[in-house]
């Protein structure tokens, strides 16, 4: 039984494929199209998944779609026609997803549709390895549900309570994100990163925005929100309540903004702690699985695990809508076979495409780049990389299969020495160009994690924060509140990355590295060697490792930085705002 799950048309489309119940591939379209958060039909991801599974289209048995278009439309109709939107009302057509699967992917077989939050729930439970677990999903909105509470056992997954639109923790968070001048569906993690710099001085106001109800329920006071009208997220009443106008995007971030972020984060954590406590009481289980966009809030996740009643927490690496593809595929498998997918605990997010050294060699040859070839000499490669890291260099690390989900986990990563007090600024200056307040995350050898963090369990997907307890000073990865968001690296899961950490440890006594995603500001994480080469050229990264090949910056042609922006622009161009490939910066004909 071969099933592909697909999510698309809202935020970061993706495809995942189960072959005989085993997860063999999953990827987001943005990694192929190079359009950040690309919501379009994941055609490249779909083709990749089939190829990775060694399947032809004729060998696929079903497609699974991650939400119910009719129920979603009923909620959209309930909310009313947004003001000032496209007068063509393209969203009125609930047949569009199926048509896209039929005509865009060419699929002529069965299509199974699952509710949005069921897909989220399945993406967590069926990949958690727990035989039985409580399941919590929380996001902005799916069809009607914005949060669901349920239980999974074997092949069975049920939800017994849900909170419905417009009452939504995800929309609450997005609203304040927007008020703070960040982009909705993109800037939420910036708000989370900003929060520790502030004080919870606006808790009272936040508690007026959202109030907890009995059981799993909570409500927003809609007077403070304007998303139903479709013009903006917050209302004037929110500005009045907080006593300040919204921050202009790109404007100065002052103490007030930090305090608002802190207060929001505190209220979110408060509610999640309360609701998970109730869920625990309701289920009596030790394991909790979480998914949905809010489950990417690793600070809240850390508190749920530390302070809540559950003993174990599993959050999948793609907890947002991309992961809906994974969940839908799992639900389809259950639907068609009556059995749970044969997955066990998901230990690795390495589900995307890979390039072998033999495939990379001709690329480097065509570019005539004087890369050092370490094929068959891994220890020497790792020694060369560790030397550079110890010397304060920033290394682009491209190895193995691309990760699924928003985090780079040692496959498409930028690595650096976490002890270097100037490293955070350097990384920002060279490549990330992100807000100075946002911390970088560390990767640590699993065996040494407890020596440096208040962490007693694996955290392979960087989805929870914990206190830094290291005897080493780790300024590049320690947040202002003394926390970090570590990835524990298991030598069995990613032997080469673990070996690199070990090589670095041997040189420096430090078994950690800064690990941040390998991408330029505003771009998706690099997918292919060509993406990596371009990002290397357009940043200030010192060294690039492409599998067994190592390139130092001085090996690059000097004209690349001038030429490559054109290539990048083109690869992003077609989507959005009705733009076509005919653009000012393009090779053109007229």
């Amino acid at each position, binding site marked *: 039984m071969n099933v592909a799950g697909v999510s698309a048309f809202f935020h970061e489309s993706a495809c995942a494929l189960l072959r005989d119940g085993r997860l063999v591939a999953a990827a987001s379209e943005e990694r192929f199209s190079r359009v950040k958060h690309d919501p379009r039909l994941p055609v490249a991801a779909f083709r990749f998944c089939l190829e990775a599974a060694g399947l032809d289209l004729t060998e696929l048995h079903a497609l699974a779609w991650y939400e119910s278009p009719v129920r979603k439309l009923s909620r959209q109709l309930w909310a*009313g026609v947004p003001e000032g939107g496209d*007068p063509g*009302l393209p969203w009125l057509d609930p047949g569009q997803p199926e048509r896209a699967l039929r005509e865009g992917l*060419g699929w002529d077989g069965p299509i199974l549709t699952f509710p949005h939050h069921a897909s989220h729930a399945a993406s967590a439970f069926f990949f958690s390895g727990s035989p039985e677990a409580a399941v919590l999903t929380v996001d902005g909105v799916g069809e009607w549900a914005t949060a669901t509470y349920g239980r999974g056992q074997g092949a069975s997954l049920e939800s017994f309570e849900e909170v419905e639109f417009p009452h939504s923790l995800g929309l609450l968070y997005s609203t304040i994100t927007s008020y703070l001048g960040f982009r909705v569906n993109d800037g939420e993690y910036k708000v989370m990163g900003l929060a520790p710099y502030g004080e919870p001085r606006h808790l009272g106001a936040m508690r007026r925005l959202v109030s907890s109800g009995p059981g799993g329920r909570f409500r927003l006071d809609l007077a403070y929100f304007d998303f139903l009208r479709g013009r903006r997220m917050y209302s004037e009443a929110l500005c009045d309540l907080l006593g300040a106008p919204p921050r202009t995007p790109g404007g100065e971030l002052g103490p007030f903004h930090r305090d608002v972020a802190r207060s929001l984060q505190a209220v979110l954590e408060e509610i999640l702690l309360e609701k998970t406590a109730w869920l625990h009481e309701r289920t009596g289980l030790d394991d909790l699985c979480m998914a949905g966009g809010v489950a990417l809030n690793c600070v809240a996740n850390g508190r749920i695990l530390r302070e809540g009643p559950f003993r174990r927490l599993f959050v999948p690496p793609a907890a947002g809508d991309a992961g809906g593809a994974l969940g839908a595929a799992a639900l389809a498998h259950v639907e068609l076979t009556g059995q749970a997918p044969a997955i066990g605990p998901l230990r690795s997010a390495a589900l995307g495409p890979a390039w072998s050294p033999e495939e990379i060699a001709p690329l480097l040859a065509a*570019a005539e780049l004087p890369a050092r070839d370490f094929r068959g000499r891994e220890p020497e490669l790792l020694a060369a990389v560790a030397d550079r890291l110890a010397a304060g260099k920033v290394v682009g690390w491209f190895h193995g299969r691309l990760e699924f989900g928003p985090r780079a986990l040692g496959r498409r990563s930028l690595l650096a020495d976490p002890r270097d007090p100037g490293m955070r600024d350097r990384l920002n200056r060279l490549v990330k160009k992100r807000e100075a307040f946002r911390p970088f995350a560390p990767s640590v050898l699993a065996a040494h994690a407890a020596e440096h963090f208040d962490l007693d369990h694996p955290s392979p997907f960087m989805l929870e924060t914990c206190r830094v307890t290291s005897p080493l000073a780790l300024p590049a990865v320690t947040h202002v509140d003394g926390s970090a968001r570590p990835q524990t690296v298991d030598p069995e899961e990613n032997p080469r990355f673990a070996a690199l950490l070990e090589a670095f440890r041997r040189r420096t006594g430090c078994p950690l590295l800064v690990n941040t995603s390998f991408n330029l500001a505003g771009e998706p994480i690099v997918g292919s060697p060509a993406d990596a080469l371009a990002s290397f050229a357009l940043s200030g990264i010192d060294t690039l490792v492409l599998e067994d090949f190592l390139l130092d910056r001085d090996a690059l042609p000097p004209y690349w930085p001038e030429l490559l922006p*054109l290539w990048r622009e083109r690869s992003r161009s077609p989507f959005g705002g009705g733009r076509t490939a*005919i653009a000012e910066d393009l*090779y053109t004909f007229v």
Partner: protein
Amino acid sequence: MSHPHRPGPPESDREPELEARRRLCQELAESLATPEGLRQARLLQAGGLLARPAPEAEPEPLPRPPLPIGIWSPVRERDGGLAWVRPDPHPLGDHWAAVKTLRPKRDSLPLRVALFGESVAAGYLYAPHLTPARVLEGILRHAGGADRFEVIDLARTNERLSTLAETVRASLQIQPDVLVLFAGNNWNLLETPEVSPWAASVEARQRFARALREGPGGPGRLAAERLRAAARRAFDLIGTLARQAGIPAIAVVPEVNRADWETRQPAPWLPEDGTARWYELYRRAAESRNPEQVQGLAERLLELDGGACPTSWRLLARSLRARGDEEGAARAARAEVDAAAYPGIAFLAAPQAGGLAREVLEEARRRHHFSVVDLPAVFAEHAGSPLPGRRLFLDYCHLTAEGIQVAMAAVAEEVFRLSGMVEDPPTWRSLVETAPGPEVSPEADAVAKLGAAIHTAHRLLSTQPRGEILEHWCEAALDASPGIAGAMVDLVAARTAPLPEVLTAAQGRNLASPYRLLLQHGWRWDHLDADLIEAILRTLRRRDPAAADEAESRLLERSLSGSWTDLSHPYWLWDPLERFYPEAMEFEDLAHRAVYRAAWPESAFAVVVEERSDVELTVTARLPAFGGAPRRGTVEVGVGGEAAARFEVSERWTREGLTIPLHRMRPGLNRLTLRWPEPPPDGEAARRRAVERLEVGIAADLHPVFGELFALRARADRA
């Protein structure tokens, strides 16, 4: 789609009013999920009965002077005066003249002529080495006095009507004395996206559908009306600006290459079995060597498609020309250009000014007293033929050095006449005779001609093989400067490299050479360019065998290996323009397909084979279903024009394994073709279905899809 999973029980304490509204909305949503429900909702929406009016938009503040002039931004100079400065040109070129600074006019002389327009006016393929503005200035100074004339180059590749008018407005800050407007090739469907089946807009599709109900010509007529209105607005503004400034304007009616350029488009759906008959007639015409027979077939094609398909006109033009009727051929070729302006064309077409541009410019003459340079008449007289071709054109509309010289001589004649600065002003004929020819280095000349080959390979879909014209331009490039052979080798190396061209050392070498190929010459075109590579190899084989060997070895590096290569990827398409326009141009969701769709009865793919070996193929294919009816047929597989295999297909995906025996393949490039079965007979029903889809805002196929491929995987079987 099924809904096998149900969430848990909903909240029990929903407010009754909201719950009632929720039930209503669920009912509505279920209704919208039915074809009739959606159709009714779309009627309401099209009638403007559903959308909430957009909030009153804040009026755009009027721009405050100084205004930017195109890419030139105003800066204050040391003496307090204003100047306009542009960013440094991009290393791969950009769309504006490579003139750093523009300044206001300070003295009455030299007379300042400002040239506006599109890529033709910008000297596309020759710029920045040779531009019409510089040639015009040279002619004016030669015949009118060296210090008495200057030409400001404000032409811009990709110029549109609205930006043309804005550039004219902004240019008044530098006090031109004469405006020259050389535009019209871009006045095509890009100006009227609101009447398009391809735009990602429900309303545009609905508008298109309403026009299509009037017949195949309906959308074309509607688009022309809107285009005419847009052009009138732009020219009314320009006319008003010129009048207020008290300066004359000269409009140049563009001419296009009607001898060498062809526009091949598939036929739209035709009633009854008209579509199938059209393709059968086309096949016979394409195979025929008898011009009289081709003419007869072309006339029958025109009867069938009502003149809506440019291909039929092209066949007629070709046959009439072959029979010596140049005037008739010229008329047919003009009709071809006009038919290609149809906004629902299937394949990406080349921008060429048609009858509408002439009408608009004539109207500008009448309404605003513009002077008009009739380039078609000038070129016909100069070339001694109403069918100007490669002597004056590098491609569909861009001019050779001679073409630029003649066109600018005609403009100069008008400038002299209007300015009165030269007694007894010379005619363009004498200016062509007496003015020194355009000066361009052999290297730049060679690059422009190789650029013509590349551009032609990328944009020409013809009714006959393209090798002759591609080799003509390759030869011309080598004639201009034999050293360009190195650039040809680099081009082949970059096209065949397994990574984006921009990362290849080949492109780096080219950029460091005297033969720099810029964006306008076709870097960053993401396919193998099989026809171009063949033309380069054949030309080099004659002219520079060592370079040919090197280019060939680069090509062979991309040979099939023992691993599978999916030839349905656009990189391997022999001619990627034989994809539907939105798929070739990436129009939003329309481009986003996992499936190759054959828009022509035959699909061709490039296969590179290093040594003589069998080629193993696996094909996953199907025939498009029409109205749910089952379909069956046979696909003929050919290599190099010879039948090699066949397989059966149906409306369901099927996978076939085939082997092409070694004696069919030759080392190097091989053209692998799939000949699809005929389209289903009822074209009227297909058209009706297309209209129905467009009416509810869904993209539709306006032309037959002959077959679909999910995969066409090939590998060398050296065993």
